[in-house]
Each structure stands twice: as structure tokens, then as C-alpha cells.
């Protein structure tokens, strides 16, 4: 007897949260090629069902803090999803429209926000365990920087909070049949 009717379900939810993240800086001078974004890595494979089939889609999600960290106006970065099938030795771009730009340009500096990234991934040819993570590169005028995970500007009643004022980065995957 089945209690699931014909409904599509969402299962095997994995969520990881880094409780003490270090700040990460992407610089328009140093990071004009893609570099790994810390705390966005997750190990996952689509959920396999009792009939041998795998989930049709996997939703990859990540949430982390992005701040402009300079006085220049344009502020942003390009991010892409990459994966590894050899435990992180080599990485390949996922493709399928999982590369995007985030931020502002022309006299509109982005002071700080959380970036919530969600990709709907096809599972064709994906039955093995993979590592997935984000990579980013910084664009903008020379000297421009993007700081991740730690607040650049956070003020409490006593003024600017220094130290480790931060937003905890999250990453998750879930299977959908």
C-alpha cells in the first residue's frame, strides 16, 4: 500500500551551517579568475528510490553575506557552480546557466546584503556522489574588494561593531522526484 499517492516529494535534505566563518575577500586585482567561495561546499548525490530511479531534480542553495569593501562605486562579483567527482582534486563548471553576476554598477555601491543562490539542477548522468561549491571572481575598478561572511558596516548603540560581526553561511541540497 502506498501512502504517497502520485505526489512529487522533496527528500534527503542536507543543510550545513558554518558557525565561525572567517572573512573572505575577493579583490578586483587578485581575484579576476575564479576562486573558491568558502563554506559553500556540500557533498551530495540525488536520492535513489527503491525502484532504482534517482530524483529528477536537485535544488542547490547557498546563503552568505556580501559587502563592498572599498570606496569605489561599482561593486559586484561573478559566481559560478562547480563540482568534483574525485573528492576535490579537480573541479569542473556545472554549466546549464549556473553562472551569474551579482552587484551594482555606475555610482551605486552595494553596502551589504545576503545573497541567496538557488539552482535547479538536472540529474541526468548524475548518480554518483559529488562535491559541489561556488566560485567567485571580483569585478570593478582597480582596488575594489568584496568581503564575504563578515559585516563591513554594522552599527549597534555604541557605534561601529568591529571584530567578528558576521552572517553564518549556509549551504543545502535536496532531492525532488
Amino acid at each position, binding site marked *: 500500500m502506498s501512502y504517497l499517492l502520485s*505526489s*512529487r516529494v*522533496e527528500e534527503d535534505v542536507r543543510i550545513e551551517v558554518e558557525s565561525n566563518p572567517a572573512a573572505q575577500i575577493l579583490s578586483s586585482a587578485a581575484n579576476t579568475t575564479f576562486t573558491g567561495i568558502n563554506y559553500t561546499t556540500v557533498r551530495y548525490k540525488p536520492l535513489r528510490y527503491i525502484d532504482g530511479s534517482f530524483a529528477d531534480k536537485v535544488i542547490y542553495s547557498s546563503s552568505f553575506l556580501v559587502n563592498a569593501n572599498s570606496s569605489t562605486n561599482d561593486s*559586484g562579483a561573478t559566481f559560478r557552480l562547480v563540482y568534483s567527482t574525485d573528492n576535490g582534486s579537480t573541479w569542473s563548471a556545472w554549466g*546549464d546557466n*549556473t553562472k551569474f553576476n*551579482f552587484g551594482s554598477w555606475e555610482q551605486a555601491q552595494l553596502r551589504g546584503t545576503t545573497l541567496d543562490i538557488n539552482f535547479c539542477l538536472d540529474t541526468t548522468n548524475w548518480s554518483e556522489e559529488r562535491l559541489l561549491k561556488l566560485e567567485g571572481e571580483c569585478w570593478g575598478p582597480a582596488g575594489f574588494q568584496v568581503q564575504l561572511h563578515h559585516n563591513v558596516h554594522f552599527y549597534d548603540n555604541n557605534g561601529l561593531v568591529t571584530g567578528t560581526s558576521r552572517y553564518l553561511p549556509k549551504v543545502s541540497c535536496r532531492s525532488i522526484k
Partner: protein
Amino acid sequence: MSYLFSDYQQTRTNLKLLKYVPTVAQIASNTTWQYVEGSRIAYTPLSAESTVIYEYYVAFSYEDTMNQADFKLEKSATGVSYTDYDTATSNQPYHWSTGTHGANQTGALNDLVVLKYKLASWGTTQQYMQISFKSRTGRPSRSRLHVTEYPSNPSSLYYYNAFVMCYEV
């Protein structure tokens, strides 16, 4: 013997997901509401007592040097003619806007955005839902969906696969 949940009410059920792979960007009109590609879904709740969650994921970018846009949720019984989702409240709980407006008429935003609505069940009949959007009248601030842009010379466009889902809780 069943190994299924004994406390089922907090589980997402009856999930429906549709993925939209764009081949062109969609530019907002300054004058008329326009259907947002990939946001339409026909959904039938299994229970008249449950709550339905509607979620839509899309890339937001710019066609002009600023970008402001307004979004709203709409519904239809047949999928042919759509109305505001809730006329009793002038649809105000289902409005949303985003974008930038610079003092020097410049300053545009690239972003990935998510719209989420919690809807009271309408029974166990099928209902269509979609998002419409529009840019502000009279301003050079048209937005663009399904792509983000690398603003160098020449610029690069990156498409993003939008997706819409509904489920019950």
C-alpha cells in the same frame, strides 16, 4: 506495517516543480503588466485544509542604466485570463518591487531573487498562478529578467534557469 510519518502535517507534500530554460531576456514594459516567463503553474491541492506555498526563482538585471520593477501575483481558473490574486485586498499582500534609483540617473542591480507566497487553500480544484511585472512609467529604468550582465566592454550576458514550485504544508 507502515514506516511513514506519524506526524505528517509539517511535511511538504504534493510538490510540483517546473524549470524554465531561457533563450532570450525578458524586458519589462514601462506601461503595461507583462507575464513573467516561467512563473506560471497549474496546481491542485490535495486537501482543502492545507496551506499552499508558491515560490518563484528568477534572475533580475537591467536594460537601462537604472532598473526598478514591480511584481504581482495573479491567478486564473482556466489559464486563459488572469486577475489579481486577491481583489478583496487590492492585491496589496501580493505586491513586491526591487531595483535601484540613482541620484545621477545611473546605478543598476544584478541579483537573483525569490518570491514566496503563503496561500490559503482554495479547495481541491486546479488553479493557475503566475507573476506579472512592469517597470516604472516615465523613467529610464527598465529591468530585464532571466539574465545577469557583466558590465564590461563588451558586456557578457549570463542566463539563469528560472523555476517555480508549489507545495502543501
